[in-house]
């Protein structure tokens, strides 16, 4: 089966600009996660969707980050405006009926 797809793979922007990331989960997976991974740290959950509903967004900085999952399939994560501390890898993962999460390759964001 095809894995989790993410784009772009790399993005460089200046602070105060906006950026959007896209994720296409594994077909049929109801649960979708967005994580932020800062260099040297583990993935930190930003938001979790179950189909197109939000299950957990307690660690999402809602003043600048937003995410949506239209029709319970693809998802986009947006940052507006970006700050230097947003430089990180943004990982998307999906989960089906089993317990394991399947991760995409991530988008490496550099904010200058």
């Amino acid at each position: 089966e095809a894995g989790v797809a993410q784009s772009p793979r790399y993005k460089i922007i200046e602070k105060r600009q906006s950026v959007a990331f896209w994720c296409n989960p594994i077909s049929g997976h109801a649960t979708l996660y967005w994580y932020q991974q800062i260099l040297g740290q583990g993935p930190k959950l930003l938001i979790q969707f179950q189909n197109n509903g939000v299950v957990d967004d307690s660690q999402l900085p809602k003043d600048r980050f937003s995410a949506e999952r239209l029709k319970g399939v693809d998802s986009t994560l947006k940052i507006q405006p970006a700050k230097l501390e947003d430089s990180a890898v943004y990982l998307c993962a999906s989960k089906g009926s089993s317990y394991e999460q399947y991760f995409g390759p991530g988008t490496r964001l550099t904010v200058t």
Partner: protein
Amino acid sequence: SQKIEQNSEALNIQEGKTATLTCNYTNYSPAYLQWYRQDPGRGPVFLLLIRENEKEKRKERLKVTFDTTLKQSLFHITASQPADSATYLCALETGNAGKSTFGDGTTLTVKP
């Protein structure tokens, strides 16, 4: 506060030896614990899951133990190989919503 700690950031061992990685947690009541492998520039890949009522799980050269009294999981790789060199992450999942919290990982280097 809730905390997950994985033993020393880096672990170096000789090929053929057993690598033992530790995951300690506080103020969690996890339903289950997972171990993932992450290679540079890639997303984490699921390895093993162990439930709160299980003591030990094995898969080929991998073994995971889970002690809910000590609040600790040990991850063993026997007959280690240079190809096992990677960062290993533990993740706790709690509650019905399946929210995952990751540790910061241990980077294992197996020297030939």
